[in-house]
């Protein structure tokens, strides 16, 4: 997907790709790999309290995914404040 120059322009002086954003992106992408790669977990064992692996593995990913999304949220919020701070310094 090609982006227009205006969509690329960040609202501050930080570059578009920062280490924080990369970590946040990994947090957000991990659940996709974990849940869409079905053959990696489509099996009965090991069971957990009588529940086949297929079911408890997917249920376990609900809290993991939530924790990862919260991490991404906190990282992005911190960086957004940083960006806004930079912008406020030059503009308003």
């Amino acid at each position, binding site marked *: 997907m090609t982006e227009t120059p205006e969509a690329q322009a960040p609202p501050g002086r930080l570059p578009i790709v920062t280490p924080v954003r990369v970590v946040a992106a990994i947090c957000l992408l991990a659940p996709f790999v974990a849940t869409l790669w079905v053959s990696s977990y489509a099996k009965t064992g090991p069971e957990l309290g009588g529940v086949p692996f297929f079911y408890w593995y997917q249920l376990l990913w609900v809290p993991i995914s939530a924790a990862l*999304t919260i991490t991404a949220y906190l990282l992005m919020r911190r960086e957004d404040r940083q960006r806004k701070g930079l912008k406020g310094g030059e503009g308003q």
Partner: protein
Amino acid sequence: MKDGVNTPALVIFILFFAAVTVMGFLAARWRKADNALHLDEWGLGGRSFGTWITWFLLGGDLYTAYTFVAVPAVLYGAGAAGFFAVPYTIIAYPLVFMFLPRLWSVSHRHGYVTPADFVRGRYGSKGLSLAVALTGILATMPYIALQLVGIQAVLDVLGVGGGNSTNWFVKDLPLFIAFAVLAAYTYSSGLRAPALIAFVKDTLIYLVIIVAAIYIPMRLGGYGHIFDAAGQKFATINPATHKPIGSLISGPQAQWGYATLALGSAMALFMYPHSVTGVLASKSRDTVRRNTAILPAYSLMLGFLALLGFMAIAAGVGKGVTGFNAQLAVPQLFEDMFPDWFTGVAFAAIGIGALVPAAIMSIAAANLFTRNVYKDFIKPDATPEQETKVSKLVSLVVKVGALIFVLGMDKQFAINLQLLGGIWILQTFVSIVGGLFTRWFHRWALLAGWAAGMIYGTWKAYGIAAPTTKHFGGSSAEIPVIGQIGYIGLTAFVLNLVVAVVLTLVLRAAKAPEGTDETAADDYTAEAGESGVAEEKPLVAPAG
């Protein structure tokens, strides 16, 4: 099914129903604004909801009564295939984390009420915006109808309405009453009514699922026994097809279908107009982002809810009954397992679980009609007061339409159309989400891509037969090139994207007029209270 009416359960059910009806009407006074006649008030609750109200509202909106009945019904009937709802709701939130805050910001700055408003503003194309709006209305209508199916399932098991009563009016009277009440308070209170009722709905649902997930396995001899019983059922060979009737673990030939259905549904979830309405009603960009982090609590609940389908198997629900309606499996399980009074609470949860999404869906469909058909094509100079008036009336029409649909036509038809609706709504993804990040796509190319996806998806789904229906019997078919069975909606989306990209290249080379973009880059990251958001809104909104 027990004989006759389950009186204690029915009394509790009616009490809850009466309580939320009162709440629905009182909601009009809740957080009331000065200018009650603006569409932002009736249609978006004044764009004022904070983190927790939004959480309850979206939870009440996305996890509908039909979900509660249909998801466990698939697990009950076919096993693992139905569990796709869990990965679907797991990946939905990281996915929308990436684009919903941008949609909120640009909508807030420009006073957009619907996703089609954004498309018109971004691409300067009323045609594309109309396509998005009509797709939204078409996909939402059968969804509202299915909420009625959810209520019907509960009423059936309670022993009132439905069944074999000869008089059609007596048979459907309870459903009429429920819907008349819903229509009345949605009309008078707008989005505030479902927002307030969602508190009751979600609390009841959590309570019922937690109790069910602990109490029912205790009575049935534990989760191990439940999965054993389900495994045995699915190993049974179907005499007609000579294949097992289901599978406890997704088999190799079903895994593409499982993953594509999860991904496609996750992408479609926030394309539905009612989801967008819930998002735009929140008061800040941060509220939206925070909600994508706390909404997964509902996914956990959905997972346990899905497993109720297996519990119904272990409890022997519908065993030996020929042609048992799988949709009744969970309501019947509740009635068999719970004491009568708690059955009433559980059924109230499902019943109210139908009212909240039905109200929001009808509001969202009405807003689409008002903003993107009425104002854009019929009466461009409509005042906000007139917009609100039209929206309120259309919300009534939409609900009556859904009621006629369910009563007059085969229920199976509503289910088929809802599956088709999912395929359709996914075709608006390129225009909406693409537009949130880039203006590279050409508006005509997007329209052509949308048309290609709609036609391909409808044609493919038309060709699918199921035991109960000749056409539109499912939503999975062979993916061209890859050769695996996958979700039609996602295949159509890929086709849609390819057409949009290729035609954009062609149209750009031909220098076709691009239309004006009324949005600016920093509109997409704006937060409430920043310059150009709250202050400018009254000026921008009437110009629309």
